[in-house]
C-alpha cells in the first residue's frame, strides 16, 4: 500500500467496515484483532475477545475441525481452507435477524493464513465469509437463467422450439450456409386433416396428438445443429445443415414413416384411418435472395395435392425445377 493511502485512511475504519469477519490470533491461539463484523455476528464485543484463547471467547463450542486447522496453521505455517461444503458452520456465528425471529446459524467459508506481526510474532489471520447468500444466490441465478432461457425458446405445449426462436435461428442458419457454402435443408411438416381430428375427437385429444407427433419427430434428431420448431398450430419446421438432397429426402421419409407407425386412430383421415403427416423438403446452398422456406412450403403444398401422407422435395434452383416439370 502506498504511503499516501496509508495516511489517507484510518485502516481501523476499513477493518471494521469490511463485510466479512477478520480476526488474528497469536501463537497461543489468543485473539489479537477482532473486527466489527465478527463481533456483530458472534455477539462478542472486541473488548471481551481480546487476549482470550479463541475457543474460549464464544459461549458455544467451536468445531474441532476448526481448532485442528488453526493448530496446524500455527505449527506448519501453511494456509488452510474450511469449505462450507464440508463444515457448514465451524464458528458460533449467526445471521442477524430483522424481526424477532430465532437467530439462524450462519453457513461459513473460512480461510486461515499464517502472518507475522510487526513484532515478528507468528500469528494467524482468520477470515470468515457468510456463504449462505452466495449459495442461495447461485441456486436462484442458476435456476432463474435456466427457466428464462427455456421460456424464451420453447413451445410450452410440445417442448420443441417455438416460432420466435425458429425465426431467429433460420436467419442465422441461412447466413451460415451462404457464407460457408454448405447445403441447408428445410422440412415443412403439416398434420393431415387436423381440423377434422379436432372436430371429431375434441381439442384435448387434438393437443395430445400434436404432442405425440412433436415427440416422435424430435426423437429422430440427434445432431446439435438440427432444430425442430412448432411453426403453427399443427405445423412443424425442421432446419438441418450439411445434408445432400438425397439424404434429406430419405430422412423426410423416415419422419413420415415414424408418424405413420404411431398408429393414432383418425377415422376422418381416409384411406389410412390414422394420423399422418405431409412433408415438403427443400435442400440447397442458398445464394442472394434464395428462399428455402418458401420452396419447402411449396413442396408441402404439392405433397398435399398429391394425396397427403407423403414427402415431396423441391430443389432450390429455379432452373432445375423448370427442367423437372
Amino acid at each position, binding site marked *: 500500500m502506498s504511503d499516501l493511502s496509508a495516511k489517507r485512511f484510518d485502516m481501523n475504519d476499513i477493518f471494521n467496515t469490511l463485510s466479512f469477519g477478520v480476526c488474528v490470533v497469536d501463537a497461543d491461539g489468543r485473539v489479537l484483532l477482532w473486527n466489527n463484523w465478527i463481533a456483530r455476528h458472534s455477539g462478542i464485543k472486541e473488548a471481551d475477545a481480546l487476549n482470550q484463547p479463541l475457543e474460549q471467547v464464544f459461549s458455544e463450542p467451536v468445531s*474441532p*475441525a476448526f481448532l*485442528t486447522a488453526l493448530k*496446524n496453521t500455527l*505449527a*506448519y*505455517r*501453511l*494456509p*488452510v*481452507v*474450511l*469449505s*462450507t*461444503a*464440508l*463444515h457448514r458452520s465451524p464458528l458460533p456465528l449467526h445471521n442477524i435477524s430483522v424481526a424477532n425471529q430465532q437467530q439462524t446459524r450462519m453457513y461459513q*467459508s473460512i*480461510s486461515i*493464513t*499464517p502472518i507475522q506481526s510487526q513484532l515478528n510474532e507468528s500469528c494467524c489471520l482468520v477470515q470468515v465469509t457468510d*456463504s449462505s447468500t452466495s*449459495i442461495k444466490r*447461485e*441456486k436462484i441465478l*442458476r435456476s432463474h437463467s435456466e427457466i428464462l432461457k427455456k421460456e424464451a425458446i420453447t413451445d410450452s405445449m410440445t417442448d420443441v422450439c417455438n416460432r420466435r426462436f425458429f425465426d431467429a435461428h433460420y436467419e442465422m442458419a441461412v447466413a451460415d450456409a451462404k457464407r460457408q457454402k454448405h447445403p441447408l435443408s428445410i422440412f415443412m411438416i403439416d398434420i393431415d386433416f387436423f381440423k377434422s381430428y379436432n372436430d371429431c375427437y375434441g381439442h384435448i385429444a387434438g393437443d395430445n396428438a400434436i404432442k405425440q407427433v412433436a415427440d416422435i419427430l424430435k426423437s429422430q434428431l440427434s445432431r446439435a445443429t438440427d432444430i425442430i420448431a412448432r411453426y403453427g398450430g399443427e405445423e412443424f419446421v425442421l432446419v438441418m445443415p450439411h445434408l445432400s438432397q438425397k439424404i434429406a429426402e430419405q430422412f423426410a421419409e423416415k419422419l413420415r414413416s415414424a408418424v405413420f407407425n404411431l398408429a393414432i386412430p383418425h377415422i376422418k383421415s381416409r384411406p389410412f384411418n390414422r394420423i399422418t403427416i405431409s412433408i415438403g423438403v427443400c435442400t440447397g446452398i442458398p445464394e442472394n435472395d434464395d428462399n428455402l422456406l418458401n420452396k419447402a412450403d411449396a413442396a408441402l403444398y404439392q405433397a398435399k395435392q398429391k394425396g397427403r401422407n407423403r414427402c415431396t422435395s423441391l430443389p432450390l434452383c429455379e432452373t432445375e425445377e423448370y427442367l423437372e416439370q
Partner: protein
Amino acid sequence: MNNLSELHLDALTEVFSIGAGRAALSLSEIVGDEVRISVPSVQVLSSKDINSTTLSLNSGRFGAVSQHFSGPFNAEAVLLFTEEQALKIVSDMMGSQMNLEELAEFEHEAMCELGNIILNACLSAMADILNFTLESSLPDYTVASADDILHRLKESSNQPYVMVLHIDLTIEKRHTAGNLVFLLSSASLANLVTHVDQFLGKLS
C-alpha cells in the same frame, strides 16, 4: 536428474506416504468414515517427457487444485482428478443426500479443501522429515481439458522438471485415483535432492 537414485525416490515415496497418511486422518475426521490415501509411486521427469499417459489424462475434463509453495524449494503443486471423479469424491465427502445440481455448487469449494488437506499434509511431512519450512498460497480450483493441463505443465520454461505422484484415495470403501504433480525449477529440484541427501546421510 541423473542424480536421483532409486534410494532418493524411495525416500520421497516414503515422505509422501506419510503425508498421505496424515491427510487421510484429517479427512476421516471430517467425513466421519474410514479414508485411506496411499502414494504407491513417485517419478521425476523433465516436463517435455510427460504426455497424457504419464498422468492418465484421457478425453474429458479434469478438476485441478493448485497451490504455490516457496522456501528452499519452490513449486507449483497440482492435484488432478477427472471431473467425474471429483464429483464422486465430493459426493462421498458430503454424504449422499445431495442431488447432482447441489453437488456441482459445492464442487469448487470442497475440492479446494480436499486439495488443501492433501497438499499441506504432503508438504508438512516433507518439512518434518527433510527439515525445511515452506510458505504457501491458498488453493485454487479450476476445471480444464486434458490438453489445457498438458499445455500448462509443459509451458513453464522456468519449471522444466515435474515430480509426479500417483495417489490412491478410498473414501467409504469407494476407490478413486488421481495424480499429484509438482512443477519444479532446476534449482528447486537440486535443493530437494540436497535435502534428501542430508536425510539419507544421517542414516548411514
